């Protein structure tokens, strides 16, 4: 049976290298055909291992990997219709760009004229015609990436696996090549699975963001959902853009509950959102950094505010579109407000100023 679709299903996939600890620990995930999926997590979280298991370079210790409706565990990479783009590309140093790209056709026994013709067509597609006779070491990072992409894509895979494809590039090129990856994915119309540890990269590219930690999936969903509605403290802190506060539930009143922090006395009102929460529970909540407003202590609070944390400004970073203001609102943890540039400079704060940090009540979210 030949694999014709690029939808992937991981069912209870585990991997252990030493038989004791699971590097990948019971991962379940469905990736649709033609989706752009990003695995994100700190180094050692198992994301690359998952990629290598899908590619067929590692066998799972347990579980099933289904591509296009077929369990591919035990099959060699070629029969899976996957192709991998390695970290730092692994281009063959002794072959020219054209020969690198034609390699997969060469080992399939295609005649020389035929495979070079196919390679040239692919070279055209990634706009490298001028460099077809060069060796990889004579190419820039971005060009090398395109060669790697072309080499992987020439066999017409249904799934392309990319292992930190942008980490070898400098910042400006990274943003540029990011777009190129997305363009190629649309053009080829196949599933891309992209492993990264850069949050911005993941949410900029992916249809499906999978946040991992310690071999487990913490949250999987569309970029906006993962960023704006993190399920737990780990995802909130890892994806960034959120302030996480913890405290004890003081009372539950209808659609909201009141959270009391150990230090700051004033309660914080948080919407319940169908969560089961009872008085006395310890709960983490998240508030987006750009939802936090800063007021002078003597200002009148607008109505509908959840809380007003009194804090001192620790540091200020100008970021262009907004200003990052770091506060000592919660002990041992950072609390940050992203203030729009214009708002900030209409009444600039200084380090050491005392302010009230506040937000509209329904913006806070309880975390698992």
């Amino acid at each position, binding site marked *: 049976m030949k694999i014709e679709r690029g939808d992937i299903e991981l069912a209870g996939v585990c991997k252990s290298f030493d038989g004791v600890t699971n590097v990948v620990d019971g991962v379940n995930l469905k990736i649709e055909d033609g989706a752009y999926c990003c695995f994100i997590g700190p180094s050692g979280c198992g994301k690359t291992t998952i990629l290598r298991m899908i*590619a*067929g*370079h590692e066998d799972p210790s347990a579980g099933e990997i289904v591509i296009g409706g077929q369990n591919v565990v035990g099959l*060699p*990479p*070629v029969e899976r219709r996957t*192709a*991998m783009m*390695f*970290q*730092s590309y*692994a*281009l*063959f*140093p*002794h072959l*020219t*760009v054209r020969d690198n790209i034609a*390699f*997969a056709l*060469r*080992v*399939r026994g295609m005649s020389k004229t035929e495979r070079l013709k196919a390679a040239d067509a692919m070279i055209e597609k990634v706009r490298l015609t*001028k*460099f*077809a*006779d*060069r*060796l990889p*070491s*004579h190419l820039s990072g971005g060009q090398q990436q395109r060669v790697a992409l072309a*080499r*992987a894509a020439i*066999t017409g895979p249904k799934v392309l696996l990319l292992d930190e494809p942008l980490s070898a590039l400098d910042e400006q090129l990274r943003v540029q090549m990011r777009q190129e990856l997305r363009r190629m994915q649309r053009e080829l119309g196949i599933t891309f699975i992209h492993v990264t540890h850069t949050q911005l990269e993941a949410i900029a590219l992916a249809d499906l963001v999978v946040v991992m930690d310690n071999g487990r999936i913490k949250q999987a969903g569309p970029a906006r959902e993962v960023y704006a509605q993190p399920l737990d403290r780990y995802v909130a802190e890892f994806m960034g853009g959120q302030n996480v506060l913890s405290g004890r539930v003081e009372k539950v009143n209808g659609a909201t509950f009141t959270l009391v922090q150990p230090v700051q006395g004033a309660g914080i009102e948080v919407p319940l959102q169908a969560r089961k929460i009872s008085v006395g529970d310890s709960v983490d909540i998240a508030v987006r950094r750009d939802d936090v407003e800063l007021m002078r202590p003597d200002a009148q609070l607008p109505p509908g505010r959840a809380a007003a944390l009194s804090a001192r400004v620790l540091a200020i970073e100008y970021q262009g579109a907004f200003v990052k203001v770091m506060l000592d609102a919660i002990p041992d943890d950072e609390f940050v407000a992203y203030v729009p540039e214009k708002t900030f400079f209409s009444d600039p704060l200084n380090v050491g100023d005392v302010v009230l940090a506040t937000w509209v009540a329904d913006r806070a979210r309880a975390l698992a």
Partner: protein
Amino acid sequence: MSMATSDLRVVAAPATRKAIAPSRGGRPWTFYVLAGLFTAYVIALYGPMICIYILSFQDVRGGLVFPMKGHSLHWFVDLFTQVRTGDVKGSFDRSIKLAVLVTVITVVISFMAGLGFRRRFRGDGFVFYMMIGSLVAPGLVLGLGTGLLFQALGLNASWYTSALGAQLSWTLPFGVLVMFAVMSRFNNAWEEAARDLGASRWQAIWLVIVPVLAPGLVAVALFGFTLSYDEFARSLQTAGSLNTLPLEIWSMTLNVTSPSLYALGTVTTIISFIVIGVSLGTIVLIQKKRGSRAAAG
């Protein structure tokens, strides 16, 4: 900001001491001491050999010591025509064949060891130290042992059996060590990429690993060849009734008292240089071929 710079201009005095890097032209005295030492070393290294080469070009009246008596190629002709001087041609033939055999085996096994040792395996340390051990063992003793073993087993010692084995005990560890150095620059992802693109194990080896490692393999071959070609200690008790070239030269020093001995030294040196030249040339050619293809694009 502009005020700050003008302030600096007043305060900053010109530097009175030089930076640590010496200025151009003025070399420290240590340079001359070390250069002198190196010159002495080079003279000590090549001086004796050059004496031999010079004396090999004497004419019929020539003797074994300076001064030089005339100049001709007489002793080179003598070397290959007179039976009196020993079996130069036969031993030379055997030495070359043996060296080629040793080279091929060394390259193949070193290559495989290089691939094998990329991953840790049970007992890898033991295997490695066993191998290094034969580097430390005195060659003469090892050769003696090999000869005794063959005798005990009732086998005839000859250059293509016992001497081959004794020499491999010397060239293999060297070859493997060179291979390790070569492999340290090999990226395993290349092999994985080849497999990912559908190459069989053999295709991955022939189309990717061997070509990438080619310069290193030539270096291993060079080691194998030269170590075997001039090996004396390990061959002495193992070569059997037919001598290899170093053994022949040695026996000639005992009974030949003409400059044809020196002529032989000159000839073998030339061959060594040719082998080294060809090897290095091959490496350069591989490098250049890759470079020029790159430049053409």
